[in-house]
């Protein structure tokens, strides 16, 4: 078992790590060898979407996932508080000596196309009437936190934007790890990605968390 980062954040401002976060950590641990073999010979560009507290990015920094001294990390969140929290968490876990930058961004719209080798996303996956509007001011704290969970129809509105563009988001060798809950109907989504869009897709981990069933799938070519 790889150690979990130490986290101390203000959870009024950023998403508090929960079963979904931990399932992604376990998935990345399981995938460590696959990723290392795939990326050991060149620089790899890692991008976490929606880092929140920074727990997942910090875990990857700490344990050299995908490969030690060969990766640079970008953490992109829409919530400005998450970017500060992610830097603070990395620092709290003595990771200032690794390459990390955070960017306030709507998904990957600010990053060059086809440059991301490893994409990780624990999205807002809870079904809701709508995806909340982006708040106008940094101090609208409650509204920023709402963006962490509410994922519109089937909880898939935000995730679908990523899946639909995966082809121009990932580098040719790229791999994406994305978390789903059962109400997202992941089997159907995955089937569509395979059959209509030619992706390889595999279940990495799944787990019952309270009344939710969470799963992490990986997508690659």
């Amino acid at each position, binding site marked *: 078992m790889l150690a979990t980062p130490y986290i101390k954040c203000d959870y009024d401002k950023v998403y508090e790590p929960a079963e979904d976060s931990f399932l992604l950590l376990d998935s990345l641990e399981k995938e460590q060898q696959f990723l290392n073999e795939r990326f050991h010979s*060149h620089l790899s560009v890692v991008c976490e979407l929606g880092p929140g507290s920074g727990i997942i990015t910090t875990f990857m920094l700490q344990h050299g996932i995908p490969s030690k001294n060969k990766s640079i990390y970008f953490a992109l969140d*829409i919530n400005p508080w998450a970017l500060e929290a992610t830097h603070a968490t990395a620092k709290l876990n003595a990771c200032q000596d690794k*390459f990390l930058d955070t960017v*306030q*961004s709507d998904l990957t719209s*600010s*990053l060059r196309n086809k440059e991301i080798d490893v994409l990780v996303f624990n999205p807002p996956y809870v079904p809701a009437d709508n995806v909340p*509007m982006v708040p106008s001011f940094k101090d609208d704290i409650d509204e920023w936190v709402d963006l962490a969970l509410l994922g519109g129809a089937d909880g898939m509105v935000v995730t679908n934007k990523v899946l639909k563009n995966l082809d121009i988001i990932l580098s040719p060798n790229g791999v994406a790890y994305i978390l789903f809950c059962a109400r997202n109907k992941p089997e159907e989504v995955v089937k569509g990605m395979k059959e209509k869009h030619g992706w390889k897709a595999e279940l990495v981990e799944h787990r019952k968390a309270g009344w939710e069933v969470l799963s992490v799938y990986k997508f690659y070519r």
Partner: protein
Amino acid sequence: MKFLTTNFLKCSVKACDTSNDNFPLQYDGSKCQLVQDESIEFNPEFLLNIIERVDWNAVLSVASDLGNTALPPSKPVFPATADQLSEEDMTILRDLHTLLIQTSISEGEMKCRNCGHVYYIKNSIPNLLLPPHLA
């Protein structure tokens, strides 16, 4: 935000994706505040991997925006592995480490050369989020 990050940031406006001017962004040298951050140690192998990957023209463009015109016009070539590096190679790599990894923009602004949209960097964090009418 570290200098190297400028090699990955483009304009967020979707329509600019079809232009060649959405990357690199144009940094306003008179408004960008640079700081040196030494927390990442020099590691020649890491630098070699980074240099293999970077878009050198974009490095030149941003360096010149920020007032550095001393870089070689084409990407320096190095031996394949770190143990074959000469003293001279090491000097160049150290300089690139200082520029790409240790130099950060703590405050500043940059704009898209296609649509002109201006983005800001505050507390070393760039904000590439678009206002609702452009998103």
